[in-house]
């Protein structure tokens, strides 16, 4: 199936079709997850009719995979009206939800509306850990009930776990729980910055040593030797390749109608309240700029030993300040996998203390410095820390 999907992706790219779009219906939520990147206030969400019109436009543009996400999608009172409309337009629909509002009647409706899969966030198999992350007592129990309701109706359910400091030890338990429930399990070790640029939640990311350990868990990654092997040398195909599908065959629409290349790539590219989706997709300067970038155009990454095997996210790079730059979180993942620092990490190494800069006077009264041949960063003057002067 992956081959068929790859072929479809290649064809969509050739035809300029946005095969996959995520629409966040709302940023409001009934949980307050500690790692969430969203502002949960409503700043003027698209109305029901605006969303239906958007879905019509997405279908017309050729979108096949429609991810409905949030916020929590079911806090919208018109959620099922929107879902019915999407179903009538024959999208392949994936829902992302915390499932707190899914009881048996909602599970019945989701089943009847041809939803392809439902992804539900579960952060731990232990209520005290999961509920402390969502900040909602009883949330694990309710989400697990919903999974059972959906599964009993034959729906494909995926448990999504975000790995962070608070739940680092629990992912094997969540995986086992997924197995008991007969559902799929995915894990993401990346806490991303808030959409407003605030990076404070990045402190929740697991440290390098823990990440190394996770990447060596055979049950998670399969063949550890293969997973952690150094990348093969990059060739012309890698250098001419596209960084990811964002803006090429995929994009994102916010609850306010803003179009971005991806939910993790908040580059404002247009708004569906002011322009037709297809016009934004085809003519936005921002999307066209994203499309113009190949790996060869990435000044640091094109020189990096990890290029051929890196999971670099251009959106995270953009949030770091440069969409052509590296994404430090992906550099850290490559390092954790292979033990080989990326070009970016090497360039960020702590500044080497300035070599000997003893200010003294020779007999002749001239200043002198130590020989430049030792190469050792010997600091003799506590006041002269900085880049080596050569």
């Amino acid at each position: 199936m992956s081959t068929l999907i790859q072929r479809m992706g290649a064809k969509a790219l050739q035809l300029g079709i946005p095969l996959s779009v995520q629409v966040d219906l709302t940023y409001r939520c009934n949980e307050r997850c500690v790692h969430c990147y969203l502002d949960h206030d409503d700043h003027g969400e698209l109305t029901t009719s605006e969303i239906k019109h958007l879905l019509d436009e997405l279908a017309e543009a050729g979108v096949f995979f429609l991810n409905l996400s949030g916020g929590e999608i079911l806090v919208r009172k018109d959620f099922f009206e929107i879902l019915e409309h999407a179903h009538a337009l024959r999208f392949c629909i994936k829902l992302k939800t915390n499932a707190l509002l899914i009881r048996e009647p909602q599970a019945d409706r989701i089943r009847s509306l041809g939803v392809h899969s439902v992804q539900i966030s579960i952060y731990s198999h232990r209520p005290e850990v999961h509920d402390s992350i969502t900040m909602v007592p009883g949330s694990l129990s309710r989400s697990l009930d919903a999974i059972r309701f959906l599964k009993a109706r034959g729906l494909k359910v995926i448990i999504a776990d975000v790995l962070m400091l608070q739940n680092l030890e629990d992912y094997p338990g969540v995986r086992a729980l997924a197995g008991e429930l007969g559902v799929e399990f995915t894990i993401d070790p990346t806490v991303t910055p808030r959409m407003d640029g605030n990076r404070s939640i990045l402190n929740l990311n697991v440290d390098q040593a823990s990440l190394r350990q996770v990447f060596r868990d055979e049950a998670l990654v399969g063949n550890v030797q293969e997973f952690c092997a150094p990348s093969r040398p990059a060739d012309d195909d890698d250098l001419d390749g596209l960084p990811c599908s964002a803006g090429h065959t995929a994009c994102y629409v916010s609850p306010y109608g803003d179009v971005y290349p991806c939910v993790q790539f908040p580059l404002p590219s247009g708004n569906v309240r002011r322009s037709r989706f297809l016009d934004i997709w085809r003519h936005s300067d921002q999307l066209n700029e994203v499309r113009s970038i190949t790996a060869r155009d990435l000044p640091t990454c094109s020189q990096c030993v990890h290029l051929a095997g890196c999971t670099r996210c251009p959106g995270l790079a953009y949030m770091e300040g440069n969409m052509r730059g590296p994404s430090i979180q992906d550099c850290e993942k490559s390092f954790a996998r292979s033990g080989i620092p990326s070009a970016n990490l090497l360039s960020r190494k702590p500044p080497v203390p300035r070599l000997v800069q003893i200010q003294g006077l020779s007999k002749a009264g001239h200043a002198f410095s130590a020989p430049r041949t030792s190469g050792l960063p010997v600091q003799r003057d506590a006041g002269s820390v900085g880049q080596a002067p050569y």
Partner: protein
Amino acid sequence: MTSKRYVRSPQVAARRLGDEIIIMSASDSTLFTLNEVAALIWEASDGSLALNEIVERDICPAYDVPADVALQDAESLAEELAAHGILRSCEECALAALESK
């Protein structure tokens, strides 16, 4: 010559991608692509025409193929799609409707 009538299942996702149609069956997550000819049959299957009429109207004028060969191919295709729940034969739909009463 008469043949079965088919309707597209309301439970599948579908989208045209160039000259093909992509189809995802929600019941078993199977992904299909229909080629140009199969896409014509899928799009025409709204229950108003029998398969032989679709072949006569849409396939034969567009492709250099004898009607009986085209119909035979169309029937195998429709049966395969029906087996995956992508098309439903109108007779089965009517039977299901009667049984549900």
